[in-house]
């Protein structure tokens, strides 16, 4: 993040400096024009929608024209933060996502490294192509198959019974919910998520391996000292971006997996908002929750980004 020396030069009037920068970077500004227009038109122009969190929405009046909600516009925000159950689902969301991240984040990196070690190029391509298939199955199908495999007479419990074990209620007991959820996530995402690392691996400098080999480094050392540092920027960026989704859980999969017994751990913010939404189409409440989620993920990303910036060269901003 080193500022350009020119912008540091003291004593120059701001306007003149700005004009100079504009002239010097005119091509960059020109290139930025279309993306800028895009972000302004499709992101910033509709951004007034955020005020919905503080409004008593009347469709006839529009978002801007709708009156402020009661309690100085804080009605929905207070409804969110004063609801004890909201904090339960908030905790569930964070725990589920952190545990999920802890396991599903390294898995595709590992797969990419293993693929990288394969001697046969054809086999490598085959494995890549096949492992990314589950990404295309929709949640409904994935959970449906899980139900078939893990129910009391499913193949897993049959195997357990054959080995003399007790049948396990994988789909119902609270303690199995997170393992089942995360396990199916790995299975569904490992191949797809490894693509980005494979592409990063392909960009590594062969000369570095050459040099490492001359230094007498074995495969393991090469992986540790050349491969991993080489894809570290990608890993870090992916980690920071993943932090940005720390509050997001798709409600669809959870609703399909939820039972009365596991609700104490499976109920998350999105499912709770969904359930509330069935009884009342409450855009203001949903917007207030979104706003809260945005702030929390901003916090997570900010912290990760700062740590990353201090310890490595890579950062989001």
């Amino acid at each position, binding site marked *: 993040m080193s500022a350009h020396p020119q912008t540091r030069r003291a004593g120059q009037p701001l306007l003149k400096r700005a004009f100079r920068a504009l002239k010097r970077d005119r091509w960059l500004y020109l290139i930025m024009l279309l993306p800028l227009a895009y972000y302004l038109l499709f992101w910033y122009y509709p951004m007034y929608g955020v005020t919905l969190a503080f409004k008593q929405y009347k469709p006839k009046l529009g978002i801007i024209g709708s009156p402020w909600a009661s309690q100085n516009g804080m009605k929905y925000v207070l409804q969110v933060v004063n609801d004890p159950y909201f904090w339960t689902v908030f905790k569930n969301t964070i725990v589920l996502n952190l545990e999920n991240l802890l396991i599903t984040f390294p898995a595709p990196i590992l797969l990419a490294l293993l693929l990288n070690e394969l001697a046969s190029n054809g086999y490598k391509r085959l494995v890549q192509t096949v492992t990314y298939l589950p990404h295309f199955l929709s949640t409904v199908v994935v959970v449906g198959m899980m*139900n078939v495999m893990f129910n009391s007479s499913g193949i897993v419990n049959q195997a357990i019974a054959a080995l003399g074990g007790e049948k396990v209620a994988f789909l119902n007991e609270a303690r199995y919910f997170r393992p089942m959820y995360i396990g199916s996530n790995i299975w569904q995402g490992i191949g797809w998520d490894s693509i980005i690392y494979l592409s990063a691996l392909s960009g590594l400098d062969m000369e570095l391996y050459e040099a490492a080999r001359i230094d007498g480094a074995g495969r393991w050392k090469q992986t540790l000292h050349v491969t991993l540092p080489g894809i570290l920027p990608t890993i870090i960026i992916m980690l920071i971006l993943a932090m940005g989704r720390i509050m997001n859980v798709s409600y669809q999969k959870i609703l399909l997996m939820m039972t009365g017994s596991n609700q104490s751990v499976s109920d998350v913010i999105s499912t709770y908002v969904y359930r509330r939404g069935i009884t009342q189409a409450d855009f203001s409440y949903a917007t207030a929750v979104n706003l809260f989620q945005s702030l929390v993920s901003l916090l997570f990303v900010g912290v990760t980004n700062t740590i990353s910036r201090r310890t490595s060269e890579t950062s989001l901003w």
Partner: protein
Amino acid sequence: MKRNRFTALFLAAVMLLSLAGAALAETPSTWLCDELTELHVMRDENPSQPIKSDTLKLKTIEELLNVKLVIEAPPKASYSDKKSVLIATDDMPDIMYVDFADVKAYARDGMFVNLSEHRDEMPHLFALLDANPSLSMSTIDGQFYSAPTLYRSNPDTALSGQLVNFRMDLLKKYGLETPTTWDELYEVMKAIKEKEPDLIGMTNRKAGNTTATRKLLDCVSYPLGSYSSIYYDKDLGGQWIYGPAHENFKGVLSYLNKLWEAGLLDPDYASMTKDLWAEKLSSGQAMCTIDNDGVVRNYNVALSTINPEAAFGVIPTLQNALGETRNIAYSNDRPANAWVIPSSCENIDLAIKFLDWCYSEEGTDVNNLGKEGVSYDVVDGKKVFKEEVLAKYAANGANAIYDMSSELGIGLLEFTPRYDTTPDNQMALYLQGSDEAREAYRAVTQAILNDPGLVDNNTIITAPPLSAEETERFNELLVAVENIVWQEVDKYITGQEPIENYDKVIEAAKAAGAAEMEDIYNKAWAAALGE
């Protein structure tokens, strides 16, 4: 070339003549407007029955009314999202299919035309609404902002519900009497289980986005003397009760616990899915399920390929331990599914006239049967589909009714504010093949129709009209109370907690607002009746 010129001349002459004719002739009296006008309507499309744009119904409407109906049909799977955005942005078509919950949420903001103000222009609709006082529950501050989906009784009327579907062949095989009480049902299942220990007693499914346990209780708790949500209990002195916060709910849980302990309840009952349910029923793994009898009957076909004798049949309503004999039948009128005209509609007059026409006998005929002489005939005063029409689609078997309805544009899954069951039942009867089978089928539907224990679910769950504040408060409480109740229920079914401890759940639910919810409903109910 010469011939072409002749044709052109001839056509021109015909056109001139017909123009002159049109100028002389009066507008047909059935027309709703002088110029052909488009009306855009919207409803969801069920994947089984695609909504087409060139159906007999649409052509008939155009001929009769001079209205060109354009049906926009977003897929059912995403309709609720689409609908809420269209309402929230006030960007609706001329007539839209909504939930009554939407009407409650938005009518007071002036989003929809107040139909009561147009009472005189909607004689057919209001004649039906006035004839059935219970429909006054579908009002907002005493006004109708929506037209409910209504049912026209007809000679082919049938009833369906969350009935007790049992493998009748098993009763016969082991010489058991058809149970008449829930306790006998337990005994019968136990007796069969002794002979066939691998069989599951009672199974269930998941439906929509609630849990499987919730669906099970939606189905069994009313006949067992309570209900899974707020409901009107005629047997408890006629009052609104939040079922899970009442003593009677313990009876429901005890019964299920009794099944569980005897190994009669599906071990996967809490995590069942619809596919697994279908599998267990159609492969003969289960004795019984309390659910939609029409859906369950479909699995008999698969079942019969394993064992020709095997079939699910409906057991008449059973008596519960409280001495009540009651169960839920799906209401034929559907006030929860309503049709609104947005106040931003550009042609309100026409939309009103057209919507009202849909409730007339003529409109109901067109929407459910197509065109007389083309798709159906009137034989001895009874409307019957032409045999060749039924035969054409019957070849498609299970999809026959949907294919026919899709092609003709008719039936409940089309733009049909007032429906009857004529197409479904005539097709079902036709598919039976022999007269003998038809008689048997009729006997089944008649038995259900004549079951005195069946209660129309409208009279159980249709909420009284609430004010805006009451609605908001009620919804708030409902979410809080349900969060408490539904995490506890399974513990009592599987015996992790003794049933006495359920009193604590009742207390907690009451503390979270169950009692206040009941108050809100009971007061509104009394007020609605007083009016």
